[in-house]
Structures are given as C-alpha cells and as structure tokens.
C-alpha cells in the first residue's frame, strides 16, 4: 500500500506547491526584504506619485461636489443613479476575492491560497474603502451621513429599516470590520517576524506594538489557529451576504431588468469573478517587480484563472437566465428592457460586457492560455472592464423607464470620470503603501503548507 501512496504525487500534482524546495528561512527572506529594504524602488515612487496625484484629484473633486451638489454629475431624471452606484458595486465586488480566498478557500483546504491571501485581503479592505466613498457622497448631504445609523434621538426619527440602502450600510460596514479583523489577525505572526528582524529602533517599536506581543509559543499558535478558523467561518457567509444585499438595491425595486430573483447569487458570482481578476492583475505585476515568482507560482495563477472561468460561466448562466425568463415571462416591458439592452442606445456597453465577461474567460478552457502570463494579464484587465460595464448596463436600464416621454440618454460629466479615476488612484495609493510597509505574502501560512511543516517530514514512509 505504501508504494501506492508514494505514487500519488504523479497524478494529483498539487502535492508540490512551491518548486525549488524553499526553506522556512528563504521564504522569510524573500518576503521580509521588501518592507525592510532601505531604498524604495524607483518604479514604486513613480506609481505612488501618479496614484497620490489621482487621489488628490479625488479629494478636490469631492470637495467641489460638496460645495456644488451632485448636479455636477451626469445624473438626471430618469437616471438618478449614475456612475456613483456603478462604481460602488464595482469596488465592493472587487473586494470579494480577498474574502473568498481567505475564508472559503481556507475551509475548502485549498493550500495554494496561502501565497496570495495576504494581499488579496489587503485589496479587499482598500476596495471597500473606495466603495464606501460613493454612496456616502451620492446622498448629497454627506455631513448628515450619520443619519443612516439607527440611534435614539429627540426627534424620534429612525432610518427606514425596509430600505436596501440601509442594509447596505450595515452589510458593507460589517464586511469591512470583519475583513479588517481577519487581515489583522493573519498579520500578527508576520509582524512579529518583522519586529524580530528590525534593525531600526522606530520600526522595532512600531512592528512590536502591532504584533501584540506575539512570541510564537505553542499556546499562542493554538489560540491563533482557532481564531483564524472562527473568523473564516464568520467571513464565509459574508462573502455571500454582502453582494446579495448590494443586489437587493436593484432587485427589490420594480424596475424592469432589475427585479429578477437570480440577482443575489448572480451578483456574488460576478463579485468573485471581478475580484479574482483584480488579484490577478496585481499579482502578475507584484510577483515580477518583487521577484516573488517562486512563491506566487504559475500553478497558483492557473488556479485563479480556473476560478475566473467558473465564476465567469456562472455570470454567463445568469445573463442567459435573465434573457430567457424575460422572454418566457410574456411581460412586454421586461422583454423590451432586454432587447433594448442588447440593441438599444447602450448596446455598445452590453456587448463589451458580454465579450469581456462571458467570452474572455472561456479562453481559460485551454491550458495554453491559462498558463500564459500575458494572456491572463490582459484577460484580467478586460474582465474588470467588463464587470464595470455590467453594472453600467444594469443601471442604464433606467434610461428607458415606463414613461417614454421621460426617456433620456445618460452621459457622464468630467466629475463622474474624475471621481472614478480618483478612486482608482486612492486604491493604488493605499495598496502601494501596503506593499512598502507590510509583508505582502503571509509568510507563516506559506511555511505552514511547506512539506517541512509536516510533523512526519523526513520520516520514511512506513510499511
């Protein structure tokens, strides 16, 4: 029997996660040297300056928005929800990859996730920050945003608990809190590593504070592992609930093309899809710049592509269901909406959406494409564009509402575009700071799945 067990590796090839037989030390070294580096790479400065400039533009434009009101956007009647809601859904969706990688893939024992989970989680947090900007500024009077929170007040006024927008505030808020906790708990052992390696007193104190006195003792690890499992359990329903709630913003209404029962799972699949695309875009760049090709291996990238293939196909399934049921319903308005999407004034957006979200991931059926880094890089960007357009197509259903007399064509203004691009700048500003000062790969987790971590490592296979 033992010979059979040894042969297993040949077919079930996932046994070897990291080629080149890295040691614990080499993993620590190749990850820690990035935040420890004395000199910041020039490329980092270039990217950071651009991102910071864009983030500055975001702040300036939001300032003007507060001064002038949301009339500076292209929103009008009937399209009261313009780019802001599109961007909100897009950013929240992108955040989902971090949570599925750290929570669901953890519960599913997918050990390859260890090389990407840390920065995917960081991406989640930054994406949620960007997402939260949009509904906050879209309310118009951002200074009374706290009214969304239910709190006792002398006017006895409460938010409308039956409003999906309120659920959003709770869902996304919970999501942010849990993701942040999960990310931070995961960081503790690695922060301790950086503390122990620090040669600079300030760094030592700062990493020391944030590593919460981690010593790596047996009891600490036991508590840590349990906390990790519990947090994974808590985060798993969040993967599904957050975007389901976001989908109810649309689906609880009676707007044709919005009110359809498949929306919650369809939005979740789309969120995971776009999130993985963003992780892919970032990891292809980061592994190259920081020489992490031996940790973020081609095998890991290939698996991410497979997840994109699966979730992209689920999204395609949802499009098909919407279209079929729109016909099957016999409801003229519903039918019109879908025909209008495909052939109306926004047909260009619809076909961008279909080609990027349904057709592009089909490339990953072929091993040649899903292992080719240029292909996956371009595909991941196209998917993110496609997913933005998906939300755009959904929102633009408003342009052709029940009253033909109010039909209009929505065009964004410079402020719509500027704030959107600015939010991308903010995202990259935060992300680049993270890359510079934090361990971007979960060292302790990668070490945990190395063959050396097996207590029986080095023992002969017993007969």
């Amino acid at each position, binding site marked *: 029997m033992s010979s059979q067990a040894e042969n*297993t590796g040949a077919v079930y090839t996932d046994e070897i996660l990291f080629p080149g037989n890295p040691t614990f030390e080499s993993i620590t070294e190749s990850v820690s040297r990035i935040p420890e580096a004395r000199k910041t790479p020039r490329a980092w400065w270039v990217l950071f300056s651009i991102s910071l400039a864009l983030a500055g533009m975001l702040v300036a434009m939001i300032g003007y928005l507060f001064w002038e009101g949301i009339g500076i956007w292209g929103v009008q009647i009937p399209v009261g929800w313009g780019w802001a809601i599109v961007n909100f859904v897009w950013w929240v969706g992108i955040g989902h990859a971090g949570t599925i990688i750290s929570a669901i893939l953890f519960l599913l024992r997918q050990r390859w996730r260890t090389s990407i989970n840390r920065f995917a989680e960081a991406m989640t947090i930054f994406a949620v920050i960007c997402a939260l900007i949009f509904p906050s500024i879209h309310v118009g009077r951002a200074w009374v945003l706290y009214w969304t929170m239910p709190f006792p007040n002398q006017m006895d006024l409460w938010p409308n608990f039956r409003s999906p927008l309120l659920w959003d505030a709770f869902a996304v808020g919970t999501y942010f809190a849990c993701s942040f906790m999960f990310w931070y708990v995961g960081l503790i052992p690695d922060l301790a590593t950086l503390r122990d390696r620090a040669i600079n007193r300030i760094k030592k104190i700062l990493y020391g504070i944030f590593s919460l006195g981690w010593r790596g003792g047996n009891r600490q690890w036991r508590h840590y592992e349990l906390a990790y499992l519990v947090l994974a359990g808590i985060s798993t329903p969040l993967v599904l609930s957050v975007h389901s709630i976001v989908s*109810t913003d649309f689906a609880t209404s009676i707007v044709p093309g919005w009110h359809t029962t*498949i*929306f919650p799972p369809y939005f979740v699949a789309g969120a995971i899809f776009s999130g993985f695309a963003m992780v892919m875009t970032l990891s292809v760049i980061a592994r190259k710049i920081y020489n992490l090709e031996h940790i973020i291996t081609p095998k890991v990238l290939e698996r991410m592509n497979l997840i994109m293939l699966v979730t992209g196909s689920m999204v395609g399934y949802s499009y098909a*269901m919407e279209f079929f049921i729109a016909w099957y319903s016999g409801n003229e308005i519903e039918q019109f909406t879908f025909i209008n999407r495909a052939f109306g004034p926004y047909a260009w957006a619809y076909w961008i959406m279909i080609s990027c979200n349904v057709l592009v991931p089909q490339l990953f059926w072929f091993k040649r494409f899903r292992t080719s880094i240029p292909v996956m890089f371009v595909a991941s960007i196209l998917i993110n564009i496609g997913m933005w357009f998906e939300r755009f197509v959904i929102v633009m259903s408003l342009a052709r509402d029940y009253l033909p007399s109010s039909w209009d064509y929505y065009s964004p203004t410079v402020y719509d575009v500027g704030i959107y691009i600015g939010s991308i700048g903010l995202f990259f500003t935060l992300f680049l700071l993270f890359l510079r000062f934090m361990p971007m790969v979960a060292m302790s987790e990668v070490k945990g799945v190395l063959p050396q971590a097996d207590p029986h490592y080095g023992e002969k296979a017993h007969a």
Partner: protein
Amino acid sequence: MQVDPKTYRVTENSKVGIIGLIIGIVGLALSGIGYMTDSAQFFHSYLVAFFFWLTIALGGLFFTLLHDLVQAKWSIVIRRIAESIMTVLPLMALFAIPVFLGIHELYHWSHADVVAHDEILQKKAGYLNVTFFIIRAVVYFAIWIIFALLLYKKSLQMDKTKDSSILVKLRRISAPGMILFALTSTFAAFDWLMSLDPHWYSTIFGVYVFSGSFLAVLSFIILVVLYQRHNEVMRQTVTVEHCHDLAKLTFGFVIFWAYMGFSQYFLMWYANIPEETVWYLHRWQGDWKDISLVIIFGHFAIPFVVLITRAAKRSFPVLLVISVWLLFVHWVDLYWLVLPNLYNHEVHLSWIDLTTMVGIGGVFVWYFWRRYTSQPLVPIGDPGLQKSIDFVNI
C-alpha cells in the same frame, strides 16, 4: 453483507436490493390502482415521486462531475456510491414516460382551448407546447445518460487497468458535462415544475431545485455509508472523517438551499407584484401555510442548528436521523412545489403519494444497489485511493 477487504468486492450481498424491488413492484402496482381511482391525484403524486428520485440521480451525476473535475482526493472512497447513483438515470428515463402520459392532467398550457383564451400563454406557446416539451425531455435525458454512462465506464476501466491517465480523461469529460448539466437541469426544473403554474416565473428557480437535489444526494450517500457501517463492512475505508466532510457539505448546502429559497421569496415579497406573489399566496393559504412553515423550519432551521457543531457532524446516530429527515423534507419541498397546482386551499395527503414514492423508490434502490455491489465498492484503480482512505480532518 460481506466484502473482501483486498478487492473491495461484495462476496455476500445483503437483501436490500431484492426487498427494494419487491416493495417497488408492490408500490407501483398499487399506484396503478391509484391511477384508475383518481388520475389527477395520481399524476401529481407521481410527478413529486418521480422528481424526488430524479433529483437524487442528478445529484449523483453532479457529485461525480464535480469530483472528477476538481480531482478531489478525500471523496475518492465515496465516488463509487455517487457513480452508481447516476447510473440509475436510464431507469429514470423510463419513469418519465407516465409524466408525458399525464401531461394534460398536469400542465394547463397543454390544452389548446386554455391557450386560446389566455394571451400570456399564447406568447409562450413557442416553448410550452407538448411536442417541444417531449423533445426537450428526451434531450435532457440523452445528455444526462451519455455523461453518466461515459464517466461510469471510464471509472470501471480504471479499476482494471490502473491507468491513472484516465483521471485526465474523466476531467476532460466532466468539464463540458458540468456546463450541460447546469443548463439541462435548470430547464428540466423550468419545464417540469415551474411550468405547472405557467404564468409564474423566477430566474433562480433552476438553482433552487438544484440546491435541493444536491442536498438530497448527500443525504442518500450518507445513508449508504451508514448502512455499510451497520453491516460492519468498509469501516476502515469509509471512516468518520469522510462522514464529517459529507456532513460539512450537507451543512453548507442546507444554507445554500435556504439562500436560494430566501432570495426568491424575499424579492417577490418585497416587490409585491401580483403576477409573482400569487405563487406564494397559494402556498400561504389554508393548510399550505403549515407546509410552508415545515419547509422553513425543517429544511433550514432545524438541520442548520443540528449540524452546526463538529461533534454532531461526526456522530453516526445524528447523521442517520438528519439524513432521513432531510430526504423527507426534500420530498415535502417538492410536494409543496407541485401539489398546490391541484389543491388550492387545502392539503389532501393521499395514499397515492406514498405508493408512488415507494414504488419508484424501491425500484431505484434495487437498481442502484445492484449496480453498486456488482463492482468494487471503491475505485480500486485510482492512484489517490490510499490517500483518500488515510484522510483525516485537522
């Protein structure tokens, strides 16, 4: 029941197959009488029973497709059970014939005079007509049977040749199989269940039926495993660890099912459009309200609470009770989908409900058991077998 521990072949079979066959024939014969006494009741009960067992067979197909596609290791020792379940699909194709015969009793849209007075049904006539309905059913079954038999054949081939390259072939087959499965099972649910109320529609309906189907097959697999343990065979091969994982999946899909059910209900409740809410209204009037509550609590709340702890997932008595219960509520769920079509306000449980269930079920179990025990009980040619046997949850 005796199993050779080396070859995993059954040396002395239990009587479960024969008993199943006898019960099945008796059940079908009694159902025949039911047909003569009350044909409308018979066809509705029959559709529920047929769909109950069909969802298990399809669940087996899905389990196998998924296993082969992702090349899971822990479930190798369970794979043969799922594979044997899906080989019942040709038999289920035969059991579909009475549904075709009862088409006019079951589906309003099949009556030309009804359609003539119904504007909405006229629009749907291109899809909802008898000829196309039967053609689609034949296509669904053809696809299911082809994939089921192909995967089964390849898997048996691996038993003999020990050729691990077959794993790659299984994966190649199951990838397109998965896509076709998603589409065919969805449209089968639309055709056979959703079109019972031909005005009503829901985009999530296919996924809802699928989630119940996968839950049912997981319960069925757990029962087969427990039956083997009861007979003191395969205890060293299919261990508590595999049961634990099956229970985790069951737990996950209890939630997934509720998620689907809730998404559908909630969005319709909120939007409050009469053409959608009428479907739930029928299921919230009179006795049907009780059945709805049984589903909410029985299909979600109770199994959710019971399965939440690790200890429960590893306890054989708990798994036995919860699997039987989940199969029962799966039947209630299908009953709740179909029977309001016949009885608008009151629930009329009929003896035909029982006879059709055990009739098809008995023959199903016999056929499954014969297939299952005729081959090694685990895929002995799979190079990951030992890993799967040694699998432990940490």
